[in-house]
């Protein structure tokens, strides 16, 4: 374990803005995109004829 305290970890010894700015942007992008795509799939599937396709 590299960190002596939570404070140490959060500040990344002075590089917190850059490290968390990078990880945060990736997390944001990789959370929003799947939700967006799944929503798109749901929308299309809801337009399909109910009887055959949404059973």
């Amino acid at each position, binding site marked *: *374990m*590299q*960190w002596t305290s939570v404070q140490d*970890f959060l500040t*990344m*010894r*002075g*590089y917190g*803005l*850059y*490290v968390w*700015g*990078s*990880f945060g*942007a*990736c997390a944001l*992008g*990789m959370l929003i*995109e*799947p939700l967006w*795509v*799944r929503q*798109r*799939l749901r929308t*299309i*599937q809801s*337009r*399909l*004829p109910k009887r*055959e*396709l*949404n*059973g």
Partner: protein
Amino acid sequence: MSNSVINWFKYASPATFYPLAGRLVPWFSGLAVLLIAWGLWIGLFVAPTDAQQSEGYRIIFVHVPASWLSMFIYCVMAFWSALGLAFNTRLSGMLTAALAPTGALFAFLSLWTGALWGKPMWGAWWVWDARLTSQLILFFLYLGFIALQSAIDDPRRADRAGALLALVGVVNIPIIYFSVQWWNTLHQGASVSLTKAPSMAHIMLEGMLIMALGFWSYAIAVVLTRVRCIILERELTSEWVKRNAVD
């Protein structure tokens, strides 16, 4: 010797590919979550502090996977484009269209994380360096592909136009990759290459490769989901969509 012939084109039709993609998405999603969690654990908690860059180097665990993926996705787009133009297969165009937004996301994340890494290390968010500039061009190529396709109503014509752009733009990928060797760049050379031993600590390399695999699994899961959307959108009125129970 069994004379069963492998039917390579079995999954070349949207109707057979759609359920296959549906079965694969959960596996790749789960794999992505596991690998990224493992990679984050190594990257943030196990890998040691870097002697020169202190904790700032930890950005490598997202910057390199995103950069690799942004280049690789464009190569896959070019592959499907060539196949689509050669065999006139509908699914090729659909897959190419499904890849572009995810490629654009990772090209952007590569530029973003690179800028956040460059500021503390180089003192600048951006420099017109060969590597950064060619990566920016890649990002614009992705946006250009998406804009081109949405500007053409007929999907098949949009596929062909997009395929040409993807094939022309693929020349940019080796430029990005070799830019650090061809030109005198601020961006560092390859720490990992197929021809020589990696120039980074083993644990750092391990964490980075695990994150890269996690990013790839994520991309496969999202692209397969998006291609299912495109298949349904384009084939909404076709018989197989009406006849089949689509899960």
